[in-house]
């Protein structure tokens, strides 16, 4: 979901210039500090350092030569088929003009400081005495694994529409909602204690959520932007990483107190020392460790959860790493590398690269999928890019570490979903035209696309319910609903309204580690 480099052009191409005369726009005060205005409206997506995050970088370099009138129109109307909302009526014409000027004259900012001291100061406690919370859920549910969490972004990525929405995935009913300041991005469940979940927002706040009472009990701001969050197998530690600034931190999962901060930098595969965004962070049922991908440094670090949190650095993994998934009881890690279109298999026991496998164009594996078919362990990886119009989902044999097939699909994809009890691997088509409304289903056995579902909105982040009976998909952007299908018949069975839904996370994932595996294989 985090694509700093790949989407720059499409946003610009989607500009819909309107003829706007200045007189009639709402007359708000023009005296706002433009930087503050940027931070309050734009930075959660475009990056606090003006360097881009979910959305393109906005600075004097990237906007050089752009027509201020066209930029103004774009800000007013938003950019169709992207997450960019219309600011008409929310910002005055004077403010928009001021912002355009500000953006076109501000260079990308230096890495701002956000260290343990700032983090500690940002810790908020909403429930003082957690021991007084009820010992059982406030609601009826067969198993807490049936809880599905959806990151509802809200149209403006903040405000009333921004919340983590928790659903009973058997009944397709909302159980509760937890409001977040800015858009929720990732929801992680505590594997050791079913009552706790953690919500990470675009602006790097982490909320500790009590699922039994559906409320946030604590929060901490770990950085300025960045999606990465992982939890240790014992549920005691969280590790979170940022794009802005370039660091990561280990938190006590119970109190959210920061324990150790890591500066993300290293020598990239081309021999250059670089400061790096944090890519995925993952805990594993295999050991008491975290793995973190350093996007720009192309390294994967393994952090042991013991005194001093020592780091083992695996170098030369790939150019621009992003996300990853686990296989083989959590011993093997498959890491996607955007810029050289490979997926790298890492052995977490020996802490060495097993092999670099071919992927498609700009691999973005999302949470990945692993399925067992006919005695083979197959890994599924989505590919974001659309090089030469050749769009595929990559399938590897994770025992032999060979490419099995590049399955042709109708566009770029960013997240596969699978379940041991469901016949299809679902992938989201994200190519920015009508195809973005759809998801495609790949038959696990034939490895062919057998069906395309027109979900609506910008359909993405498919996820199966913990029992595998239902397929949940976000009709995102302006679709404003989560659509539920029967996983076998693919008939639509329910729709749940919310504003701009994005990532969907089943609590079942803590049982099967990677989607598609059966919990039995984890024994």
């Amino acid at each position: 979901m985090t694509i700093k480099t790949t989407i720059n052009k499409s946003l610009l191409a989607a500009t819909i210039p309107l003829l706007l005369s200045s007189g009639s726009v709402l007359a708000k005060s023009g005296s706002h500090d433009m930087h503050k205005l940027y931070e309050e409206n734009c930075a959660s997506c475009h990056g606090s350092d003006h360097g881009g995050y979910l959305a393109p970088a906005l600075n004097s370099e990237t906007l050089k030569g752009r027509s201020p009138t066209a930029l103004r129109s774009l800000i007013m109307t938003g950019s169709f088929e992207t997450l960019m909302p219309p600011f008409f009526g929310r910002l005055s014409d004077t403010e928009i003009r001021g912002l355009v000027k500000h953006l076109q004259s501000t260079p990308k900012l230096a890495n701002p400081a956000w260290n343990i001291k700032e983090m500690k100061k940002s810790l908020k406690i909403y429930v003082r005495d957690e021991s007084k919370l009820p010992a059982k859920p406030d609601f009826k549910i067969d198993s807490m694994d049936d809880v599905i969490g959806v990151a509802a972004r809200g149209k403006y990525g903040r405000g009333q529409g921004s919340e983590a929405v928790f659903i009973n995935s058997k009944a397709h009913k909302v159980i509760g909602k937890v409001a977040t300041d800015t858009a929720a991005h990732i929801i992680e469940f505590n594997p050791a204690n079913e009552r706790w979940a953690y919500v990470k927002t675009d602006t790097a706040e982490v909320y500790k959520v009590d699922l039994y009472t559906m409320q946030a009990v604590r929060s901490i701001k770990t950085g300025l932007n960045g999606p990465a969050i992982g939890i240790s197998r014992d549920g005691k530690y969280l590790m979170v990483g940022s794009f802005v600034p370039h660091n990561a931190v280990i938190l006590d999962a119970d109190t959210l107190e920061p324990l150790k901060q890591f500066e993300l930098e290293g020598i990239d595969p081309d021999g250059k020392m670089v400061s790096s965004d944090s890519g995925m962070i993952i805990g594993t049922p295999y050991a008491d460790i975290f793995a973190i991908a350093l996007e720009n440094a192309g390294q994967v670090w393994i952090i042991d959860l013991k005194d001093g949190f020592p780091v083992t650095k695996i170098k030369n993994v790939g150019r621009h790493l992003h996300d990853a998934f686990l296989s083989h009881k959590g011993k093997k890690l498959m890491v996607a590398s955007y810029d050289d279109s490979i997926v790298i298999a890492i052995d977490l026991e020996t802490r060495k690269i097993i092999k670099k496998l071919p992927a498609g164009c700009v691999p973005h594996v999302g949470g990945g999928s692993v399925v067992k078919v006919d005695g083979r362990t197959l890994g599924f990886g989505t590919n974001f890019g659309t090089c030469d119009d050749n769009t595929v989902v990559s399938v590897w044999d994770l025992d032999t570490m060979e490419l099995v097939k590049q399955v042709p699909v109708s566009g770029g994809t960013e997240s596969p979903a699978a379940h041991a009890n469901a016949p299809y691997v679902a992938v989201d088509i994200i190519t920015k035209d009508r195809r973005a409304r759809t998801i495609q289903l790949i038959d696990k056995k034939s490895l062919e696309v057998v069906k395309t579902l027109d979900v609506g909105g910008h359909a993405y982040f498919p996820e199966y319910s913990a029992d595998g009976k239902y397929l949940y998909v976000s009709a995102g952007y302006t679709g404003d609903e989560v659509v539920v299908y029967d996983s076998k018949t693919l008939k639509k069975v329910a729709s749940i309204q919310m504003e701009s839904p994005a990532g969907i996370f089943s609590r079942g994932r803590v049982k099967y580690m990677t989607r598609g595996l059966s919990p039995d294989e984890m024994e």
Partner: protein
Amino acid sequence: MKILAYTMAALLLSLSANSYAASAFAGKYKAAAVCSQCHGIRATSSEAPFPPLAGRDELYLEKALKQYRNKTRRSDVMNNIAAGLSDRDINNIAEYYSRLKP
């Protein structure tokens, strides 16, 4: 100024090319591709300053769009958007939105 008007018209034209029959489906597609950006489908964003369209009276919606088109109702944004809509587009969209449950 001409270039801007042309871009807007081109967008709406490319959408029209796809709407083969006068149907709620054509209305649905245009609503999803253009109008929902501000008005949403079933509801506007709780944070957005735009009037909702779902479940509104069909004739009212038609009349409003025609007034925006002939500029008897003034709104810079809506005047520009309506300028590119044909009678058939207006019927389709009004029919689609009016039948939606908010």
